[in-house]
């Protein structure tokens, strides 16, 4: 992973955390974090509960704001804490930067008052101003891609958890993000439908060039999907290496302890 310093000067990083800290009340959840994600890179984020994995994704999606440091997306400052927070950018500019990021949530967060197809069409139509017919074609294509061509007319309440999560993936894809965030997208699912959702993400990894930041407790998935695995604890990155290294020969004792605890 040493080629990074040479290639970074040409293409901007997809996402970059520079000395980012985030605290809730007295608790520091993200502690002076530096993280770089290159375009098209697939990164798995693993670590014990409460270590701050979700918070990293939420910071990148601007669902949370940093207290300190700077978060950049393709070279533009997305959000900043401390002194940097003062120079707020115009809304249009900000949304153009944030628009490069998409997110799939643990709880799906589908719109319950819309069918699967409408869920996928809604943002292109309402946000991007796409023509309805064009958005419908796109939505049908995306539903097909996640294996739900037949379910466009169903409401979320009529779908299984695995199907709902696949609709949510299609919905996020409809905005054509360049960085996709997955936050434990199988944790709310019954064991028998986890496979179908992971398969969809695997296919995406093969078929697209999106950067992916994947938080998961499924270690097999974390290993297979990633170019790079980050183990974190208490708001800090403990080890950042290739999947082979992390899972076969972790250097850090805490990484070892975590992986051993998970195996049992």
């Amino acid at each position, binding site marked *: 992973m040493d080629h990074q310093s040479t290639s970074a000067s040409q293409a901007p990083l997809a996402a970059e955390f520079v000395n980012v800290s985030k605290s809730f009340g007295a608790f520091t959840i993200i502690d002076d974090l530096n993280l770089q994600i290159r375009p098209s890179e697939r990164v798995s984020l693993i670590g014990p509960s409460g270590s701050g994995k979700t918070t990293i994704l939420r910071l990148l999606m601007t*669902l949370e704001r940093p207290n300190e440091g700077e978060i950049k997306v393709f070279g533009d400052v997305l959000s900043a804490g401390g002194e940097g927070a003062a120079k707020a950018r115009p809304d249009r500019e900000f*949304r153009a930067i944030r628009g490069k990021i*998409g997110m799939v949530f643990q709880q799906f*967060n589908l719109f319950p*008052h819309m069918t699967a197809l409408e869920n996928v069409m809604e*943002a292109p139509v*309402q946000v991007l101003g796409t023509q309805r017919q064009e958005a419908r074609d796109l939505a049908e294509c995306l539903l097909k891609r996640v294996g739900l061509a037949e379910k466009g007319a169903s409401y979320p309440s009529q779908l299984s958890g695995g199907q709902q999560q696949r609709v949510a993936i299609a919905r*996020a894809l409809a905005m054509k993000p360049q960085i996709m965030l997955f936050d434990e997208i199988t944790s709310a699912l019954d064991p028998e439908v986890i496979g179908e959702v992971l398969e969809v993400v695997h296919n995406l990894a093969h078929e697209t060039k999106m950067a992916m930041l994947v938080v998961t407790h499924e270690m097999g998935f974390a290993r297979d999907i990633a170019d790079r695995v980050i183990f974190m604890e208490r708001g800090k990155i403990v080890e950042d290496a290739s999947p082979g290294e992390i899972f076969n020969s972790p250097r850090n004792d805490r990484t070892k302890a975590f992986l051993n605890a998970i195996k049992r």
Partner: protein
Amino acid sequence: MNFSPQIVAELLPALLRGTVVTLYATAAGMAVALVVGLLIAIARRGSNPVAVLIIDSFVTVVRSTPLLIQLYLLFYVLPLYGPSFSPLFTGILGLGLHYSSYISEVFRAGIDAVPRGQWEACIALQFSRVKTWTRIVLPQAFRIVLPQIGNYLISMYKHASLLATITVVELLGAALNFAGETFRYFEAFTLVGIIYFVIGFAFSRLVRYLEQRTTYGRA
């Protein structure tokens, strides 16, 4: 005293005209209450402390005083210092503002009942604030509060009889006029009671129906 069919025949047209006025006042009053109630609910979530204080004061005063007094103030006192409106318009305004103070609470609870994940999905999909409200939050909140709004509609429909006291010839007013002229209180109030009941019963059935279908995709 006998129930005279002839009297009923004389009375009925006036009562039906009154019914139309009552239904019109209820519908218009509810429209005012929904719009003002929604604006109150949204403004209360805002961060402007002065606006929140003014709105809270309005809601508290309106809720702590009888509708009848509010109607008198609007009809007899307001014209001394400000604009004067027709009796019916005044009545609609009074009903609407009175109920807006309750309906704003219903909306507030309905909006709060929309899960946080819905707002976050809107951010992740780049929705503007306006689109977040109009496309995602309010449609779900409306669905949640519909049965309660229905109950307030029934209540307002009955409360609309107070408009008789500010000279609006709605259903009760029509009965009072007729009884005052003919002294046939028996027919007038029996009939007016029946009409109130039939329409009110239909309303309450409708509300019960709405209560039963609150999930999506089960129509």
